[in-house]
C-alpha cells in the first residue's frame, strides 16, 4: 500500500481536473491528478465533433484536440498523473483512498478538487413503461460505442430527449449509415443548443418532435418498436396521438446528473437544485479545503466555461493549501471578524445559481452562473438583495440550454449585511 502527500489532489482528469491542476501547479503547489480511465481528457475523448474552444482558444477544435492541448500542458507542468486509478473513498480530513493495478493508495492532501464530471439519466429515472429488451441505451454510451469501440448499436434509431449529446449522436449515427427516425422531446422546446439543432438535425432532415414522448417500449428480447405520443400543456399524454414506430434502438438523451457519490462520502452538502456541491465564491464546498468544478458542480454546455471555472477552483485550492502550510502552528487564517456569509439563490424563472453563498466584504469580483428554467423571449436579469437592486440587465431572449453569467463588483455587494442576507437572481419577463 502506497502512502503519498500532495498540496492538491484533483479527482478526475477531464477538462475540469486538468485546468484546476494546471492553475494550482502554476501557484506553486504540488499536484496529483487521479484519473480512472487509461488517459486524461474525460468525456472529451469521445466527443469527436468540432465546436470546442471557440471562446477559450479562439479556434474551433474537436473534443480530443481540446483535451490534447491540456494533456500536453499537464505533461510539461510536472503534475503527477495516476491513470487507471479509481478513488473509492474520500474523508473530510482530505484523505483519498484509491486503487489501481499496483494496489491500494492513500493520498493525503492539503486541498482537494472534485472534478468527477456527471452521468446520464437513465430509463429508470423517467420510468418508461414496457418491456426491458436490449436496444435501449443512453446517448453517451452510444457515442462511446460508435466513436471509440467503432460499433453500431443498431440500424433504426429513435432518440428520446433533445439534450446536446442526443443531437450530436443523431448526426453521428446518420453519417455512419444508420437511420435516425426522429428526435422526441417531452417539453415544448428543445433542450440542446440552437447550433446543434441546426447543424445536427435540420441539416440532415432529422425531424424534431416537440411535446412528444416515448410511452411504451415494445419487443423482447430485442427492441422492436416504441410507442410515442404527444403531450398536452400539463405534460399529460394525449391518448389519440399514440403511434408505434418500428426501430431497433432507443437512445436516451434525457439529462445529466453530477456524480457526487464521493463528495457525499466526505460529508460535502449538495445543492438539491444542481445535485452538485453547495459552494461559495471560491468554489469551496462546506467541507473546508474541498473544492468543486466542472460538471460535478453543475452541468455545463460548453467546455470553455468548465475550463474557466476549474482554473478558479484550482487557484483557490492552491491558496488554501499553501496558506494552511505556512500558517501551521499559527492561529486559523482569515479571521471571521467583520465578515458575513450571504446566501445566493434563484428567483423568478431561474433554476439555480453557482455559487450558492459568498462572504462579504469581498476583495474581488464575484461571478454568478445560472440557468433559466424555460425559454423566455424577452426578459431581463435582476439581481437584488432585499429591496436593493445590485444588477439589472438589458432585455433580451434567454434559453435554458445556455448558461448565463453575471459579474458583480465588490462595491456592489460589500455594503450588504443584516436584513438583506440573501442575493436573489431573477429573470423577469418584459412585455
Amino acid at each position, binding site marked *: 500500500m502506497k502512502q503519498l502527500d500532495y498540496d492538491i489532489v484533483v479527482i478526475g482528469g477531464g477538462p475540469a481536473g486538468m485546468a484546476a491542476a494546471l492553475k494550482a501547479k502554476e501557484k506553486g503547489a504540488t499536484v496529483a491528478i487521479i484519473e480512472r480511465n487509461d488517459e486524461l481528457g474525460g468525456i472529451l475523448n469521445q466527443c469527436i465533433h468540432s465546436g470546442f474552444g471557440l471562446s477559450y482558444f479562439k479556434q474551433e477544435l474537436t473534443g480530443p484536440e481540446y483535451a490534447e492541448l491540456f494533456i500536453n500542458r499537464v505533461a510539461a507542468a510536472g503534475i503527477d498523473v495516476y491513470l487507471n486509478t*479509481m478513488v473509492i473513498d474520500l474523508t473530510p480530513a482530505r484523505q483519498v483512498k484509491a*486503487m489501481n*493495478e499496483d494496489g*491500494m493508495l492513500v493520498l493525503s492532501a492539503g486541498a482537494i478538487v472534485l472534478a468527477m464530471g456527471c452521468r446520464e439519466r*437513465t430509463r429508470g429515472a423517467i420510468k418508461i413503461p414496457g418491456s426491458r429488451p436490449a436496444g435501449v441505451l443512453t446517448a453517451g454510451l452510444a457515442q462511446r460505442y460508435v466513436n471509440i469501440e467503432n*460499433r*453500431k448499436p443498431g440500424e433504426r434509431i429513435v432518440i428520446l430527449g433533445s439534450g446536446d449529446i442526443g443531437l450530436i449522436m443523431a448526426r453521428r449515427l446518420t453519417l455512419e449509415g444508420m437511420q435516425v427516425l426522429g428526435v422526441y422531446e417531452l417539453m415544448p422546446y428543445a433542450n440542446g443548443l440552437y447550433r446543434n439543432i441546426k447543424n445536427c438535425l435540420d441539416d440532415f432532415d432529422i425531424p424534431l418532435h416537440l411535446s412528444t414522448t416515448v410511452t411504451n417500449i415494445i419487443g*423482447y*428480447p430485442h427492441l422492436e418498436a416504441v410507442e410515442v405520443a404527444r403531450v398536452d400543456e400539463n405534460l399529460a399524454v394525449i391518448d389519440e396521438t399514440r403511434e408505434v414506430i418500428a426501430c431497433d434502438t432507443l437512445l436516451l438523451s434525457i439529462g445529466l446528473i453530477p456524480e457526487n457519490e464521493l463528495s457525499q462520502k466526505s460529508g460535502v452538502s449538495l445543492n438539491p437544485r444542481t445535485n452538485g456541491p453547495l459552494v461559495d465564491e471560491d468554489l469551496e464546498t462546506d467541507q473546508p479545503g474541498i473544492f468543486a468544478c466542472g460538471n460535478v458542480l453543475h452541468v455545463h454546455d460548453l467546455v470553455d466555461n468548465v475550463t474557466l471555472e476549474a482554473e478558479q477552483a484550482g487557484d483557490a485550492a492552491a491558496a488554501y493549501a499553501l496558506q494552511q502550510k505556512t500558517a501551521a502552528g499559527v492561529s486559523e487564517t482569515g479571521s471571521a471578524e467583520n465578515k458575513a456569509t450571504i446566501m445566493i439563490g434563484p428567483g423568478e424563472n431561474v433554476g439555480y445559481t453557482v455559487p450558492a453563498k459568498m462572504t462579504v466584504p469581498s476583495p474581488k469580483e464575484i461571478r454568478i452562473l445560472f440557468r433559466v428554467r424555460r425559454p423566455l423571449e424577452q426578459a431581463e436579469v435582476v439581481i437584488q438583495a432585499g429591496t436593493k437592486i445590485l444588477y439589472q440587465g438589458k432585455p433580451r431572449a434567454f434559453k435554458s440550454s445556455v448558461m448565463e453569467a453575471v459579474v458583480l463588483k465588490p462595491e456592489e455587494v460589500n455594503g450588504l449585511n443584516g436584513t438583506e442576507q440573501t442575493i436573489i437572481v431573477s429573470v423577469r419577463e418584459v412585455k
Partner: protein
Amino acid sequence: MNHYDIIIIGGGITGTAIAHECSKYQLTAALLERGTDIGIGATKGNGGVVHPGYDPTPGSLKAKINVRGANLYPQLARDLNFGIINPGIFVIGFSDADEAMLKHKLEFGIKNGVQDLAIIDASQMRNREPHLATAARHALYAPTATVVDPFEVAIAFAENAKANGVDILTSQPVTAIEKRADGSFLLNTPEQQFSCSYIVNAAGNHADEVARLAGIAEYQMKPRHGDLLVLDKDMVNKPQTVIFPCPGPDTKGIACIPTVHGNTIVGSTATMMDDKEAVNNYAPGVQALIDGVHKILPELDAGKIIRTFAGLRPVVLNNNNDFYIAESQTVKGFIHAAGIQSPGVASAPAIAEQVRDLLDNAGLEMVPKADYNPYREKPTDFDALSIAEQDALINHNPAYGRIVCRCETVTEGEIIAAIHGAIPARTLDAIKRRTRAGMGRCQSGFCQYKVIAILSHELGLPVSDICLEDRGSQLLCGAVKGGVK
C-alpha cells in the same frame, strides 16, 4: 444419452432448492433450465422478502411450507454464504377495520407457528420508523422476518448442488416428454435427449405446459403480474423495516422493502394476466406503486428511482391461491412443484423437502451421502474487504485492481470469476446478478462496454454475439463504416 434418477425442469429458486436438496442423497440428478441463466423467471421479479408465514390460512399446505421455509433461511444463509438481513416486517393499519385485520393476521401467524409476533402501537412503530405516515395507528410486527436477494439464493443453491454432483444445464428448454413402458421418461431439448426415472416440474409460469408435454392436464396456470421499483442506495430516510399496508384479498399490498445491498424496493402491484411472456412495466402500475408507498412513507423521494422491473408470479387456477406440490394423479413418477406464487422465496427450502418426501413416497430410495458438503464459498466481494485485504488481493491478481463498475465498486477480477464460476455467467445480466456490475445508479451506462469486452475476451466470442439476457438480446450489431480500429 444420459440417464438420471431425477430431472428437475426449471432453474428458478424452487428448482434450484430442489436440486440442492437432492444433492444430499445418493442419486443422480440434473436440472434443465430453458433460459441462458438460472433464476431469471419469477425469481428475479420479486421483492426478496422471506415472509414469516402469518398470511396463509392455517392448515393449508402453504402455511406449513411457508413457516418451515422461512425458519430454514438463517442457517442456509450461513452454509451457502448468501446475503440475508433481518429487518422484520410491519403491517400497518390506519383504522379500526385495519386493526381487526391485523389481529386476524396475528391469530393466523400464531396458529401457523410464527415466532414473536405482536401488535404494536404508533409510538413503538415510530421509534423504529420515524418517517411513517402520521395516520398509521398500529402495526403487526414480525421481528423474525428476513430479506434475501432471490437470484443470489438460487445461484447459491445451484452452485452447491453442482458441487455435490447435480448437473445444472442452462439453455435446455424441454420440448417433449415421453413416458416409456419401463416407467422411465424420455426428454427432448432442441440439442439433446435425456432419460430419467422421476421428473420434478418446477417450471414456474410454464409448469402447466411442461405437464401437458407428459400428457398431464391437471391444472391451468396464469401469471399474477407485479410492477416493482428500485430506489438508489443514497436515498435519505430509508426505512429499516419491511413495511406493508393492511393486505387486500389477492395481494399483500404495496410494500417498502430494504434490500440486502442497501437499496430500497417498492412492490408490488398484483394483476392477473394472460400473457406469460410479457414481463412488462405498465404506467398505471408504476404510478400505483408511487402512490401506494407514499401512503406509508409520505416523504419517500420518488426522484431516487433508478429502475423499474416486473415479475410474474405463477398461479395455479382454482387452487385457493395455494401451491400445487404433489405427484401427478395420472403419470407416476412425475412430481409437480407448481403454482409457487408468493411466498415462493420463503417457501423454496421447504418445498424442496416436500418434494424429497414425495420422491421417497413414489419409490425413490433416498440414502444420505456421506461426503455431502453443505458449504458454499462466497465469491470475492472487493467492496466488502478491508484496505489491507484489497491491497493483498490486487498484488495477487491485478485484475482486482481494475474497477469496471464504479457505482457498485466491482472489479474486473470479480467479473472474470463470475464468467468462470460453477454456474457460469455468459450474459450481461448474469454478470449483473452475480457481481452487481450495472446494478447501480448509472444502470450500466459507464460499464456496459467494458463488461461486453470482458465477456467477449473470456468466452472467445465476437463482441456482437454478447447478449443482455435471453437469446436474441445482442447489444451491438456490426462495425461502423471504417471498421473496428
